[in-house]
């Protein structure tokens, strides 16, 4: 039984259809990240699951119950927002207990849950402060605390870290991951446009673009075997190198050809059978290229070097186009130096130039 099940859901505003028959199953205890650029519909989907938005057709099931027309409070969910959405002029304690009080939870039980959540999030010393006396990071902890006391089976996060600075974001990201591990069977649905958050937190990532699911898979799958050009380009930094070319058949098997560059594809795991002469795009992540003595592609020259501490990104070109290579930070590299690139065929992706889909 899945914890959250979105079945053939259509969401429409007036004539504009945000989703048309979208389905998604989320397992109990799973950490799902909805990833995509702004306007891709990820927040709309989350709001539909929360019941903050009416679906036009289809069903939403949570914990084995059809909750399509249930009020958000009756769905067994808790939610954390980007702007924290703490109730102003109420203390942290009141913020956390307001919902429970409305639900007529016994006082002792409220106190117990607030205490527990505050302990877990290390905000016990802040309980009597008001939101405007807290820092951004503390506010988001309180917002998470307010969600925790609801004892919900499903947690929904709507870009919870986007308003925080980089350092706090990293801190809270780890905290959320730890929380998920501690809570055990709690399901989490997390919306973000930040691919690092998605990669680090998710059990499975759902990549969305223009209201369509592009790919569902583990971070590893998404990263190593992107389903199409969009996913390949959206995930990973520095971005994947894309090289336009075509498939040529030869005696030993198909081969990728782009000008002087050739790459035998005997070891490539094709999804669909390639046609000889087919126009394709080869995708290679910068770290899957090697600077080699005798490599696959000779004739490159270093343009720019970007040291990044542990790593280094080398921009090099061979007259046909620029390619980024990621290598150890300790390597010596000087612009103008000629070099040869080695390509690991097991790590590349091939996409149809026509449809953008993986082949």
């Amino acid at each position, binding site marked *: 039984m899945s914890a959250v099940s979105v079945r053939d859901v259509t969401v429409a505003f007036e004539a504009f259809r945000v989703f048309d028959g979208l389905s998604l199953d989320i397992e109990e205890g799973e950490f799902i990240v909805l990833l995509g650029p702004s306007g891709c519909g990820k927040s709309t989907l989350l*709001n539909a699951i*929360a*019941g*903050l938005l009416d679906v036009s057709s289809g069903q939403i099931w949570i914990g084995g119950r059809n909750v399509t027309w249930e*009020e*958000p*409070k*009756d769905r067994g*969910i*808790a*939610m954390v*927002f*980007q*702007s*924290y*959405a*703490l*109730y*102003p*002029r*109420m203390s942290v304690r009141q913020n956390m207990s*307001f*919902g429970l009080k*409305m*639900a007529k939870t016994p006082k002792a039980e409220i106190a117990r849950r607030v205490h527990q959540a505050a302990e877990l999030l290390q905000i016990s010393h802040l309980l009597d402060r008001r939101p405007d006396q807290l820092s951004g990071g503390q506010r988001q902890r309180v*917002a998470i605390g*307010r969600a925790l006391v*609801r004892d919900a089976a499903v947690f929904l996060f*709507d870009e919870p870290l986007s308003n925080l600075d980089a350092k706090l974001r990293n801190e809270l990201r780890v905290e959320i991951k730890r929380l998920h591990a501690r809570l055990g069977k709690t399901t989490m649905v997390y919306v973000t446009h930040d691919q690092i958050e998605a990669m680090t937190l998710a059990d499975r990532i759902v990549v969305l673009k223009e209201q369509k699911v592009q790919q569902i898979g583990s971070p590893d799958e998404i990263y190593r075997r992107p389903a199409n050009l969009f996913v390949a380009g959206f995930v990973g930094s520095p971005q994947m190198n894309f090289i336009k070319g075509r498939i040529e058949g030869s005696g030993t098997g198909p081969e990728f050809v782009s000008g002087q560059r050739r790459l035998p594809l005997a070891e490539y795991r094709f999804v669909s059978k390639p046609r000889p002469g087919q126009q394709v795009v080869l995708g290679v992540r910068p770290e899957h290229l090697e600077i080699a003595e005798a490599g696959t592609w000779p004739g490159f020259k270093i343009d720019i070097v970007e040291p990044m501490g542990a790593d280094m990104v080398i921009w090099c070109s061979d007259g046909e186009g620029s390619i980024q290579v990621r290598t150890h930070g300790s390597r010596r590299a000087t612009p103008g130096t000629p070099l040869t690139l080695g390509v690991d065929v097991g790590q590349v992706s091939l996409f149809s130039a026509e449809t953008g889909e993986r082949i």
Partner: protein
Amino acid sequence: MTTVSIRAPGISPPATTKARRRIRTRLPAAFALLPTALVVLVVYIGCMLWTVRLSFTSSTLLPKLDWVGLAQYSRLFANDRFLTSAENIVIFGALFISGCLILGFLLAVFIDQNVRGEGIFRTLFLYPYAMSFVVTGVAWQWFLNPGLGLQKLVRDMGFESFTFDWLVNQDMAIYTIVIAGLWHGSGLTMAILLAGLRGVDEDLWKAARVDGIPTWRVYTSIVLPLLRPMVVTATVLLATGVVKLYELVVAMTLGGPGIATEVPAKFVMDHLFERNNIALGTAAATIMLIAVVSVLAPWVYARYVRPQGRHA
């Protein structure tokens, strides 16, 4: 050491030229502000002090500069007309401000419920604010006059014993002025509070829905505290309107029946320009000034003086 002491005077001349140049470039700015400074000095400060001074004289038709101490004030507080005026302005002020805030808040909240024709409703609620108090007064006087207005209308509908004669009833006339005032001013409150409601973070509403907090409770416990600055702005605006209440009374009741709807502003105007009792009029004006300042002072203190102290 010597070199330093010799050079020191040599450094200062450029500094003074710089200061002088700064003064010269700012001169046109100072010049531009001069007329306003004069107005502040002569009208806002001078006339005010002059009025206060006159209240300690025995001036009648023409101003005199003698000194009779607080004699005018004791006359004032023995004056029925003035006491009624003071009582009326308190009744009007309390009912008008609270009425406008409540009605304005309700209108804003109801308009905020995603209703159709929102623009039409907003336009209809606010248009009276564009009309003058004289127009407002004349319109309501016509509608509320018992002979041909509302009372007759309801009686003609078959309720023979219906009575609504507040306009000509000594005890109730002031409330008709409150009604006309509400009609004129609650749209403004609505507009200010509606702008505030639209500024409330949408996530806050979502959070409250997930928490299962009833809508009315969200408004009272979460939204209303957020609207406090708008409520203060509206209150200040309404309160200044209360003090200035004059035209509405003149147009609606002329202070009548009898002296039932006299207000301080009208008392001052009448004594200054019709009853030729300048000293008594200025004494009443001074009382108005004191009343306004005593209401204003805590607000100014809370807003400008105290926060500075806290941040320091």
